[in-house]
Structures are given as C-alpha cells and as structure tokens.
C-alpha cells in the first residue's frame, strides 16, 4: 500500500461452494476456487492543473477460476464442460465526497454530497475445454449513495455481446460497513494492532 499515491495492491482467494443454493437459480454442483489480484488507485496525487480529476479512482481484480470438476452431467444427461476462466473486473468511480472535502466545495449538501457515480466492467473469458475465447461480460453504469454506516447502489447491467445476453437489466445493492457499525468487534484487527 502506498498512501501518498493512493495505491493499493492485494491478493486473495474466493471460494464459491458448490450445491449451496437453489438449483432453480442454476447453482453449480461443483465448487470454484478463484485466486486473484486486487488493485486500487486513486488519482488524488494529480497536479493542481488536473484537480477536477483527483476524485477519480480505479479499482480492479484479475482472477482465475479453478472448477473442482472438469465436466458435470445434468439430470437430463447433458454433459457440460467446466473451463478455467479468466475474470477481469474494473470499476471507475468519481467521489463527490472526496471532491468536496479535498478539492473544491461546490456547495452540495445532504444527500447529494454523498453520491459516487461509477462504471463497473466485468468480463469472463474461458481458457480451455472447448470454450476458449468465448468472452462474456457486462458494463454497469450506476450510482452509489454512501452514509456513515451503509451504502446503497443502483446500476444498469448492459451485456457486452449477444453471447452474454440481449436485454438490459438493473441491480440494487445494500452494503453495511460492519467495521463502523461494530467498531469493537469487526472494526478491530484480527491479529495484533489496536
């Protein structure tokens, strides 16, 4: 992490546990393990001449999905190949709170001073098992409203190609900041520190 340059790099592993949801929703019967590299870069270190770009930030992830089964057979006897998949995700956001607190107070007040417009891009590219190169993905323009304890997000879901889908959808999300809500439990480091 490099705080002066608002740069963050991290690694992590995501595990999607198979058969842990309703089959009517198309839940896989196998698990998928996905190690990934996460990064984030704020543009707060830009020179004064570009100060209106300082509230911009880019975050992203590059991951590789490892399914625990190479192929699965459905109840109807259909066999599906489960390829390794390269996942790429990118989010570009413009923080109004940062603009008003660090660059220029343009006079927005509650609730407009908590808005964060953003665009998220998410792509999956199979690498093998007969599906290599068949990329799918979505582009998600939207907006987040962030308070001290939670955020509400609303995004459109736009498929990037016919393989992904033909219709535009929408998603609303509610995220809670557990470290702020429970500073004496989730808000403390698990190991060491105060």
């Amino acid at each position, binding site marked *: 992490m490099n705080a002066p340059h608002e740069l963050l790099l991290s690694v992590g592993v995501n595990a999607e546990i198979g058969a842990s949801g309703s089959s009517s929703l198309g839940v896989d019967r196998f698990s998928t393990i996905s190690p990934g590299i996460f990064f984030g870069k704020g543009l707060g270190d830009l020179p004064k001449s570009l*100060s209106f770009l300082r509230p911009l930030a880019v975050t992203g992830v590059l991951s590789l999905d490892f399914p625990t089964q190479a192929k699965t057979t459905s109840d109807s006897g259909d066999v599906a190949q489960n390829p390794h998949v390269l996942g790429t995700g990118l989010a570009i956001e413009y923080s109004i*709170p940062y603009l*008003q*607190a*660090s*660059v*220029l*107070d343009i006079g927005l*007040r509650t609730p407009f*001073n908590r808005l964060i417009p953003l665009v998220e891009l998410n792509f999956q590219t199979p690498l093998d098992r007969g599906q290599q190169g068949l990329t799918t993905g979505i582009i998600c323009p939207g907006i987040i409203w962030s308070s*001290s*304890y939670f955020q509400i997000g609303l995004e459109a879901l736009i498929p990037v190609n016919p393989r992904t889908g033909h219709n535009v959808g929408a998603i609303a999300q509610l995220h809670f*900041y557990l470290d*702020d*809500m*429970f*500073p004496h439990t989730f*808000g403390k480091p698990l190991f060491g520190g*105060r």
Partner: protein
Amino acid sequence: MSSLRALCCAVLILGWSWVAPPRAAAHAFLDHAEPRVGSTVRTPPTELRLSFTQELEPAFSTVEVKDESGVQVDRGDVKVDADDATLLRVSLNPLPPGTYKVIWRVVSVDTHPTEGDFTFQVSP
C-alpha cells in the same frame, strides 16, 4: 408458518437493538470547512473551522495551516468546539494574499483515525 416468521422478525429486531451501534461511532470525514475547500476569499480569515461527520476525540484531533513556503500560520490553539463535538477550530495569524494548505488528522470518538488536506486562497 406466519408465527414462525413473526418470531424470526422479533428475534432479529431484538438482536439488532442489542448490538446496534451507539450514535456517532463511525469514521469522521470532513463535511465542510470555513473557509470552504478550494475557495478564494477576499477577507483573510481569523479562524479555520472544520465540520466533520462524526464527533471527535479532542486529544487526538489536530489541524495545521501552512503557507506556500511550508511555514505554519495557525496559532496552534486547536480545539474541539465545546458545544459541537463535530467542529474543530484553530485561530490564524494575519494572512497575506497567497495559497494556504490545511492538513487535518482526527480521531472519531470510536477511535477510527482519518486524515486529509485541502487548500484555500486569500486574494490580494
């Protein structure tokens, strides 16, 4: 089934009220400042006032104001307002025209630290 749902809701609500956070238990972010962030003022301010989104811990909340040469121009008498614990104040020396940088670091009452900076200008 509906009674089971009602019981679950009651348990959730009771559980929530038991673990619900006290007021002002989050990170303190700068809400607004006087002089305003990035502004140009004609009359040199005699005091800087920073208003945060949460109440502050006075012992660990500081702010400095520096001129373009890096010379400190505040009087060092930083204090959290007695009537409004979200307000941080510091008085300023007489400011000639120029650009001034405000550097703040505060700790909210739940011990979360935050920091930031911004500039304002005094016009000739």
